[in-house]
């Protein structure tokens, strides 16, 4: 039984580089074990049945393999990139299911990428800072951030679920996002 790697002690950007340069399968295996179980959780939180979540998590990882050469370590962390791939697949799959109305639109939002390049180590440090900030957010702020990123609910519904006034949900979310956003630094 291989030891399950954690993204904290693995150079994920380095593994992406190996995949891009030489289709390195063992690098892919490691990334799969880090991200696929969490992508599955992300999709389940968005209401996907377990089987569908599994299928979309696999598709997310296949997309990472196929598009490896598009990943730019100076413009996004691997985590942010995987997040956007999973988000786009989730949106697409929901749209397909809903689009009996034949919504004549197929928008694939681009994958995560800043305009302003940073160094790889800056990006890695930012991710470490973000993870530690998330773990120290006041619980009531963490709750609204997670609901907003992971449950696809309008703010009004989040407010109802938490039995809070809408204004309170909005201000907590604004505070928490401003705090996390601030840690990413001034890119522009």
């Amino acid at each position, binding site marked *: 039984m291989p030891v399950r790697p954690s993204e904290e002690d693995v150079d994920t950007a380095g593994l992406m580089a190996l995949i891009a340069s030489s289709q390195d399968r063992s690098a892919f*295996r490691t990334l799969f074990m880090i991200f696929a*179980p969490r992508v599955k959780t992300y999709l389940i939180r968005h209401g996907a049945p377990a089987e569908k979540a*599994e299928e979309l998590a696999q598709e997310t990882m296949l997309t990472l393999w196929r598009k490896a*050469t598009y990943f730019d370590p100076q413009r996004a962390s691997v*985590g942010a990139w995987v997040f956007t791939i999973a988000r786009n697949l989730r949106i697409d799959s929901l749209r397909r299911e809903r689009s009996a109305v034949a919504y004549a*639109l197929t928008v694939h939002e681009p994958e995560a990428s800043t*305009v302003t390049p940073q160094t790889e180590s800056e*990006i890695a440090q930012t991710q470490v800072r973000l*993870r530690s900030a998330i773990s120290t957010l006041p619980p009531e702020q963490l709750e609204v951030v997670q609901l907003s990123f992971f449950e696809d609910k309008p703010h009004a519904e989040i407010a109802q679920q938490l039995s809070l006034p809408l204004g309170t949900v909005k201000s907590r979310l604004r505070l928490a996002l401003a705090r996390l956003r601030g840690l990413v630094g001034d*890119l522009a």
Partner: protein
Amino acid sequence: MTPTRHPSDAVLADYASGALRSAFSAVVAAHLEHCPHCRDEVAALEAVGGALLETLPESGLAAEGLERVMAALDEAEAPAAPAQSTIERIAFGRERFLAPSMGIRKAGSGADGELLYLLRLPSGQKTLPHGHLGVEFTTVLKGAYNDNGALYRAGDFCEMDSAADHQPHVVVGEECVCLIASERPMRMTTRVGWLVQALTGV
């Protein structure tokens, strides 16, 4: 020229988390193509999304899942062609003329009845006064218009809610093309407006 009128932080956060309906998402995407500032903002929010993803607990995977994916790697298709612009990715219907050199192209309607369309207005055109029954997002693609004392130029983004009535006025010199998503049909405030609405369905 970079845009000067941007989506609010809340709209960018909804875009980055994938919470916007596709019609609204498309209008934000059209603005992002013109706006390096907002692209960096969205990337920062996506970095937050990535960090949140990394802190999620793991779900158990099907035993054969990894091997199935490993086996599929060789057959993985080559990446799709480089992304076109937002406008090129939307399937619009044929242009319907409301008047000479004034036309509308709709892209169907979404699950909740929201509309996405391109509106082309000639230089100097004053629109009919109207309000909205829900949220409306606009990104200017070409030309410029004045609205409630503010100037919107190519790339600028405007969010209207149901509270305000307005009457955009195209700046003289060039036609104006906008990509618009609206939650509900407009609320016309004049009789002529009702008639136009009956004819066009926006």
